[in-house]
């Protein structure tokens, strides 16, 4: 644990070496999130609900996804450099070290500039909590936190899948972006808005709806079933096939560099 902490501090220090660059990039992330926020704002200046969800509730969706995405990407986004590590042969060096391989990859590549997105998410959630018209209680507060945490894990898993694919192919797969960057974009509306087929896909294949739509039903008192409350926790099951996929990828790994 101490070792990982040290690795993390080194990473933090190295990113902070270029302060200007760090803050510019963070600002960039913030501006990116801001444009998404404005697109919701502009739409809601003309309508008052999407699929029966009000402005405040949509903002809640938006901020939960934004926060989960920002932390998930800060942790897992660095996995994108995985294909370079594999191609350059540095991966072999990591394999012989007596530490967890995933930790060795993610800690030095953690992208802390995602704080820009996170800050935006926090601001919007502070706006959304009173606006959403939800009668808050302890259970609902726990559920909201669970949505964010489980969402973070889910996004991390998606980035892990994307990285694992580079064991099998040297081309990066654009298509998988739809589940990462796409989810950030489309998660701003409750996922039921996209119709039952998409909702089904996002429930049983890539369980994004489990951290967004179903808990939202519980929060807004549209459904009081315990299933809705448990949904974020059920999404964690997704981590098992992801990890398995990663192990399979690891086993079929053949060194590529020197």
């Amino acid at each position, binding site marked *: 644990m101490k070792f990982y902490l040290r690795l993390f501090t080194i990473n933090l220090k190295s990113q902070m070496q270029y302060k*200007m*660059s760090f803050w*510019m*990039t963070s600002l*960039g992330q913030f501006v990116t999130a801001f444009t998404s926020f404005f697109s919701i704002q502009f739409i809601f200046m003309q309508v008052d609900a999407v699929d029966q969800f009000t402005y405040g509730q949509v903002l809640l969706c938006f901020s939960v996804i934004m926060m989960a995405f920002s932390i998930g990407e800060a942790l897992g986004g660095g996995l994108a450099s995985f294909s370079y590590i594999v191609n350059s042969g540095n991966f072999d060096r990591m394999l012989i070290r007596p530490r967890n391989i995933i930790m060795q990859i993610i800690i030095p590549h953690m992208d802390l500039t995602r704080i820009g997105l996170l800050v935006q998410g926090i601001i919007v959630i502070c706006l959304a909590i009173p606006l959403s018209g939800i009668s808050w209680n302890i259970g609902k507060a726990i559920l909201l936190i669970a949505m964010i945490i489980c969402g973070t894990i889910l996004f991390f898993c998606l980035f892990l899948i994307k990285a694992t694919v580079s064991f099998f192919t040297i081309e990066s797969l654009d298509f998988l972006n739809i589940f990462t960057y796409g989810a950030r974009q489309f998660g701003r509306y409750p996922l039921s*808005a*996209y119709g039952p087929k998409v909702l089904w896909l996002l429930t049983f294949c890539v369980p994004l709806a489990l951290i967004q739509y179903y808990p939202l039903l519980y929060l807004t008192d549209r459904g009081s079933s315990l299933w809705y409350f448990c949904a974020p926790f059920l999404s964690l099951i997704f981590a098992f096939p992801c990890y398995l996929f990663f192990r399979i990828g690891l086993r079929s790994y053949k060194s590529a560099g020197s």
Partner: protein
Amino acid sequence: MKVYFSLLRIRVINGLQYRAVAIGSILSRFAWGLMEILAFYALHRTNGTKFVMTFSETVSYIWMQQALFILFQVVYSDREIVTAINDGSIAYELVRPIKLYNSWFVQCMANRISPTLLNCMPVLIIAAFVVPKYRIHFPPFLNLMLFLISTILALAVVVALALLMHISMFYTTSPRGIRIIVTAMTTFFSGGIIPLPYFPEPVLKIVEILPFASMQSTPLLIYSGLVTNMEAVQGIGLQCIWLLILIATGMFLMNRTLSRVVVQGG
């Protein structure tokens, strides 16, 4: 002129080689388009009459936008240019008897044209055969012509702005932040996230005359059939004005920068 044309041709052919990547991006463009359309369908289902743009116009707008996605990217991996600035190989470029601004201009254009050539037809074909509700419509011939002219101008405006960004990289060692900010601003103000007619009236009045609107909004709105022919011609006029301003600024800054550029290393 001929030398720039051959440069363009070589680059386009070079870019056409990566077909596997193309299939991936076609699929993802299709999925993005579909999700966008479903989102707008949800909006129109709830409150259809409130918007200036009808649902079928929005559908055409989005499909065409996805088909021409890369064409309108200001921040796109113009790798040769970025490396040339970073590793100093720009020195070689400067020795060549061609104008650097012009050769970069055609390079940037080619970088965007070749993936678009591969992507646009499959995406459009799929878009023409999905269920009728979500199907792209084809405009009358005159609109199509205006759309083509406007698209070419839009590409030129995009590239002119991209070059301004590249020139700024002579002055900074950390282009990442700038690239992210430019991506966010251009995407938003050019109607990349939501089409400009979905903006509220007072905001739209300002955004319409900014150079960003000339980048993808103008051609896509002409295609979708939302604007009248008169408005289309006006839009094209505005594109020309912005194109001239951006090119003039770019050339001026390029000359100024190159007169004092210091190449380190050898």
